[in-house]
């Protein structure tokens, strides 16, 4: 397992760093928030990202992708986390597209995936139905009638749910409401009859939606994978998304940390730089250690996916759990060490704190992943 970046990955990372700093800095998220932008992200910037090839990093060349893999995409995600860039990278590229790739018919893949790679088609995954991540706790029902299914239920925290052209819905076709088996994935049109999408205004000013499905009709040809086989299709994609999100969180943590260390070297009190105080030095050094450990866990998870290793699930949970704990520590310390200025909306550090708590909840927080890791290790 090569835990270092290849030359190609390093170039990708440098390019992404420059792009996000110039094109989608934190102030562009502030502008989206302040203008109450309907879509919650900049279409033009996403087009540019697609032209750079980032929308197709995970897709095979036959669908217009570059097949650079998760470690490559992780570098772009880490850099996007540095500026809290709002984009469809997560919902479309990490969650939606791999499900279509793994579960859709060839005809559907030919239609959708090249459009995903070119940045035209946006996807979303409608999974959770409760405020805490619980991928098996699904009450949304899909009942077969002839050549189609009828879906009834509701979903929350559907990232990009209000703008997606297609939405992958996890619904129950058999079993009890908490049974991991008996789930089926359906690909709905974003504007399907009976589907109500309501954008939620979250603390991180990013995109999420509530979905309500009332007798939404979807054809048999829109089933991804097999009927009742949704869990097996979903789990590896969720792990990929968790590892990718952990990479984004690593970037957010690095940026919040570096800004804080810079502030410690700038701010003077009692006639000296506050960074000279040992009480603050030690807190900075502790954060550095946690960031280093998180980086190792993130790279290992990304590599494991690219190498199809047997311990992907454990490493994805390790990466997400470490990223959650690290980012909670770093964002809290960042605000505290910035002092009063850290509490103001003018200073950008607060954006990192707000985004962090949403990143922590998406697809499982630290305690979710410790529980999962323990179960995987049979204790």
């Amino acid at each position, binding site marked *: 397992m090569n*835990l270092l970046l290849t030359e190609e990955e390093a170039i990708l990372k440098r390019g992404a760093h420059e792009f996000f700093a110039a094109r989608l800095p934190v102030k562009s998220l502030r502008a989206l928030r302040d203008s109450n932008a309907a879509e919650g992200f900049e279409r033009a910037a996403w087009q540019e990202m697609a032209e750079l090839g980032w929308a197709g990093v995970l897709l095979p060349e036959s669908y217009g992708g570059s097949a650079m893999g998760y470690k490559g995409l992780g570098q772009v995600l880490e850099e996007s986390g540095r500026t809290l860039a709002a984009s469809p990278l997560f919902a479309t590229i990490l969650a939606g597209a791999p499900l279509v790739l793994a579960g859709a018919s060839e005809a559907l893949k030919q239609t959708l995936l090249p459009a995903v790679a070119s940045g035209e088609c946006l996807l979303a995954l409608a999974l959770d139905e409760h405020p805490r991540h619980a991928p098996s706790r699904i009450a949304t029902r899909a009942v077969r009638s002839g050549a189609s299914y009828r879906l009834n239920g509701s979903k929350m925290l559907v990232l990009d749910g209000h703008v997606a052209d297609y939405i992958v819905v996890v619904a129950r076709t058999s079993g009890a409401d908490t049974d991991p088996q008996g789930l089926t994935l359906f690909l709905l049109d974003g504007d399907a009859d009976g589907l109500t999408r309501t954008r939620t205004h979250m603390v991180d000013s990013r995109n999420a939606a509530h979905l309500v499905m009332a007798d939404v009709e979807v054809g048999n040809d829109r089933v991804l994978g097999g009927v009742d086989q949704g869990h097996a299709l979903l789990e590896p994609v969720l792990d990929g998304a968790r590892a990718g999100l952990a990479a984004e969180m690593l970037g957010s943590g690095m940026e919040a940390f570096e800004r804080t260390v810079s502030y410690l070297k700038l701010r003077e009190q009692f006639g000296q730089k506050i*960074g000279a105080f040992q009480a603050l030095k030690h807190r900075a050094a502790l954060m550095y*250690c946690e960031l280093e450990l998180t980086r190792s866990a993130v790279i290992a998870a990304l590599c494991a996916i690219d190498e199809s290793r047997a311990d992907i699930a454990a490493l994805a949970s390790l990466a997400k759990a470490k990223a959650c704990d690290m980012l909670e520590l770093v964002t809290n310390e960042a605000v505290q060490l910035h002092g009063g200025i850290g509490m103001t909306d003018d200073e950008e550090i607060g954006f990192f704190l707000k985004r962090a708590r949403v990143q922590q909840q998406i697809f499982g927080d630290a305690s979710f992943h410790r529980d999962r890791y323990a179960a995987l290790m*049979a204790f």
Partner: protein
Amino acid sequence: MHALDEFRAETRTWLEQNCPASMRTPMEDEERVWGGRNATYKNPESKLWLDRMAERGYTVPTWPREYGGAGLSGEQAQVLREEMGRLKCRPPLSSFGIWMLAPVLFKYGNDAQKREHLPRIARGEIRWCQGYSEPGAGSDLAALKTRCEDRGDHYLINGQKIWTSYANFADWIFCLVRTDTSVKHGGISFILFDMESPGVETRPITLISGASVFCETFFTDVRVPKENLVGRLNEGWTIAKELLQHERGMIAEIGRTVGGTVPPVDVVAKRYLGDANGRIADPVLRDAVARQVMNDRAFALTIRRAEQESEAGAGSGGASSMFKYYGTEQNKAKFELLLKCAGSAALGWAGDEFSSEELDICRTWLRSKGNSIEGGTSEIQLNVIAKRVLGLPD
């Protein structure tokens, strides 16, 4: 066949033929082989294993052959480690000479010093101890006072060291001494001498764990030949600091391997707290165990990443302080968690009512407290990270 694969096949065959069966079993700490003039071997095969490995240069596989090494590349040495791991071979030799002194001797020693000391270190003939800390110079090591006076044809050393690990068993000492009292860091020199020299006295210190691995070491008018000075006079601090980096890496490493007979924390937790399905029944402790083993794994991955970086020639200087800090704190946390999981069973001090493993947990728990004090406290490591890595002001 790829040259490395060929090397792997050869090494595997050689190890299989030459590593005695008793050297492929888990090692208690008292079975560790330190070598030296007065070495005793609880198991005679330990000596055989040491001699066979030393003859092949495998106690120091990457050293040049002229100094007793095997001249292996980093990749070959990794293959050797992997193959030894596969057969569960014990380390043939544990040595402060290899881990701490040799790296600085290679860099700062003159030809005569390298020729005299390195081959003996490689063969485990001379056991070294480290004369650093003094009663008044712990974290503030550069405050050391042990005097070294120039007496024309020799140096004369007077003073006291403390926390000298295994000084009572050591043959030679590498020692920090004061050769100029008018400046602090710039008045320190790095010198080597024989512990059998007249005027050297050692007294073991009993620790809270009941063990006595450290000594007080006294020097009274000890005469040392002038050619035993390493590097230049009054430039010992540079060598001292560099050696500390090697020591920190070593302690973090030993910290993870001491108590070799103590099983992993999840295994102990399941034994004392497992339900019928093997799940840890206490949800709070189960979460704590998961946190512990996950941090262990992330730490192990970080060590691997640093090794890969250093092989690629891109290591960072503050890394050893991070590994020392995190490795020792993690080890202490592990033993606290073992105590919580095993309850009163891990609080036995002696006697047949407790298993040897339970007694080992208790003693090693106490010993682990020193990991974050020796070789630079955790607080000093955080200072080093803040200064060297983060560039925070003094």
